[in-house]
């Protein structure tokens, strides 16, 4: 394998990992606060659609991003409404969210654009531009480092950098701020937070809203950066892969980055070599597609270190029985 191939795989990895990263961090906030979120997929999808639709109408990717975030937050609030306010089953609510998004995007897209659940292709400012990092051109010819910096790191959509920044930011918020302390506490023992004079409901709503915002950015990236427009079901299971990455990362931000890069790379490899010839065996495309899920099951089975979710995860907080 030559350097050019490696560079291309890494470039592709970074692009494909970005929507996973946002979604995974979204799940991290939500689940750390004790709200299980299998509705990541749905939020990602609905954000992808609304950002594409608004970017198309306004001609601005940034306005599209805002619309995507707004749509995703609305879905997050529905989840919060069901699982926090009405103490419903968080898993069922998540399932419903996913279906709602799958149906809603197509129905609305069809009614707005009459293109079979698509948005028209986006061009110009309706998509996020690629940003060249400083010195990208100057460094291009430096061996090894050059291509890695100039091709892999530089020249990506602004949202890719935002995603990379979100990781340390998440870490900082979670472990270095009052808000993070309370957020983690509410996912471990909400009664402790409640008796400490902090509203559990409010903290949990903050968490699902943050999850909504992050999914919103991920969805916008999908349709206005990675692709140029929305097509039906374009999230294509990425929300579930992000969930898998979250478990893989054991609900921690830096590990989440590693996990999504790993899963992004699997996708990049599967794109490059549909049938990966390893000499002894040839791995079909389908195997590569299933690998993130298989790895997650292995992690869940506890054969490779135990993944312990936040202790109050999935449980509605009920004071009076």
């Amino acid at each position: 394998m030559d350097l050019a191939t490696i560079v291309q795989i890494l470039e592709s990895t970074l692009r494909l990992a970005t929507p996973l990263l946002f979604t995974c961090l979204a799940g991290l906030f939500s689940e750390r606060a004790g709200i299980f979120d299998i509705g990541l997929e749905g939020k990602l999808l609905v954000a992808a659609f609304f950002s594409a639709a608004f970017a198309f109408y306004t001609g601005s990717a940034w306005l599209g991003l805002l619309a995507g975030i707004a749509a995703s937050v609305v879905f997050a609030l529905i989840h919060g409404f069901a699982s926090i306010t009405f103490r419903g089953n968080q898993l069922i609510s998540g399932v419903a969210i996913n279906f709602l998004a799958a149906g809603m995007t197509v129905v609305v897209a069809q009614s707005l654009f009459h293109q079979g659940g698509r948005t028209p292709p986006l061009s110009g400012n309706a998509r996020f531009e690629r940003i060249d990092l400083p010195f990208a051109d100057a460094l291009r010819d430096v061996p090894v480092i050059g291509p890695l910096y100039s091709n892999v790191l530089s020249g990506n959509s602004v949202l890719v950098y935002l995603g990379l920044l979100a990781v340390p930011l998440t870490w900082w918020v979670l472990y270095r701020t009052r808000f993070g302390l309370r957020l983690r506490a509410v996912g471990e023992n909400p009664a402790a937070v409640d008796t400490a004079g902090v509203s559990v409901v409010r903290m949990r709503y903050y968490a699902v809203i943050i999850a909504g915002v992050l999914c919103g950015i991920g969805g916008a990236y999908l349709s206005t950066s990675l692709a140029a427009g929305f097509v039906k079901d374009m999230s294509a299971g990425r929300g579930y892969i992000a969930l898998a990455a979250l478990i893989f990362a054991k609900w921690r931000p830096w590990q989440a980055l590693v996990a999504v890069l790993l899963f992004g790379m699997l996708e990049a490899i599967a794109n490059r070599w549909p049938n990966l010839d390893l000499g002894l065996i040839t791995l079909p495309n389908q195997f590569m597609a299933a690998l993130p899920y298989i790895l997650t099951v292995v992690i869940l089975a506890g054969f490779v270190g135990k993944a312990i979710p936040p202790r109050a995860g999935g449980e509605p907080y009920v004071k009076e029985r």
Partner: protein
Amino acid sequence: MELRGISKAFGPVQANKDINIRVRKGTIHGIIGENGAGKSTLMSILYGFYRSDSGEVLIDGKPTQITDSLAAIRAGIGMVFQHFKLVENFTVLENVILGAEGGALLQPSKARARKLLTQLADDYELSVDPDAVVEDLNVGHQQRVEILKALYRQANILILDEPTGVLTPAEADHLFRILRGLKEQGKTIILITHKLREIMEVTDEVSVMRRGEMVATVNTADTNPSELAELMVGRKVLLDVQKTPAQPGEVVVSVRNLQVIDRHGVERLRGIDLDVRAGEILGIAGVAGNGQSQLLEVLAGMMPGTGTMTMNGADMDLSLRRDNARTRREDSIAHVHEDRHRCGLILDFMAWENVAFGYHDRPEYQKNALLMDNAAILEDAKGKIERFDVRPPNPMLTAESFSGGNQQKIVLAREIERNPDLLLVGQPTRGVDIGAIEFIHKRLIELRDQGKAILLVSVELDEILSLSDRIIVMFDGKIMGERDPEQTNAQELGLLMAGVVGDSVTGDAA
């Protein structure tokens, strides 16, 4: 501080009825009452954890709206709950500052808190390692964290809900020293307990609750334990149970060197030897959490252990590779679990189904190889409900629609009417009203008189004293000694329960 006309209902349960109470500043005020009297509910209302249906709170004479815990904290109230409210995988420091960080960033808050904690530790003998993770601490230390949390928030009124239930006597004494120290600093303390000894020892005033109502408030100096006991239960306590002397027969169950390590790796039983004979009640006394619950669960096949156990001469498999709760029932061991809500009953099942629960695979309940004979079960249930005077006598009601005492009767009916050779009973009268208590005690004696062996675990010393034919005291997973109920008294048992043999304290209780 004053509470006026507080009422609170949980669905159909009226936990507090029109409660009035005044607590004077700088005193230790005790609140006593039986299980379920509504003590915790009242205090949770004061702390804003629950919201009262009616009534008002006055602090320093000013009406204060306590809408949530934050309001209570602001009003200077701190509370140590019966079940600690700690984030177990956080450090002590993080638990202490949670909700009172004093700034958006954690590092400066932690530094500030660390300084304050050292100071509090010195002032009140409350030393805890601020960087220890809470789940690694023992209960006594966890409780200190709770107290520190309240003090850190500058609480002037400190509520402690049954703080000694999980403590060894030495730890309890340490706690009382702390409380007296706090009082000297001018803090007001409300101490909830149902242990009369503690009330007499530390409180200045005491209020008595019964069935959701406040029945009296008296000066501790002006009262005595028996008066308080009478107030608590609402009539002269007849703790004597009518019974004839036991006629112990063969050894039914025999246990040697029983050891248990629980799922978290904690040693619960450290080498128990005991025998229970036919026709006797062996009572096990001890402070909650000293291994009694595990003893019953191991014998009942719910929890694995090591050592040997023989039942009617046959070896039982303590590792539970072959045995389980079902095979123990087949070996004629019945078990009244101490937690009837979690284990003893399926609350959503109807009474008749609960009567078969655990014995549902018995041949008399089967119609043929495939189907159960629901009619037979229903018939059987009707009989048991009648004989045990379960009210209302309707087998079609779900278990949760019965009151605690009647639920307990359903469990007892199911287990006792099997005529087991050995009956394991945990806390048979917890949360049960007086009438039902007498009924249950009578049934247990009857079973004994039929020549069955009974192993009784209870935290109520009176119950142990009045029912048992022999008493074993457990402390820290070990047997501290055996006593004859006729020749011992609460004082002596209390010492044993505290790990004191003769005059020396065993173990590292303090």
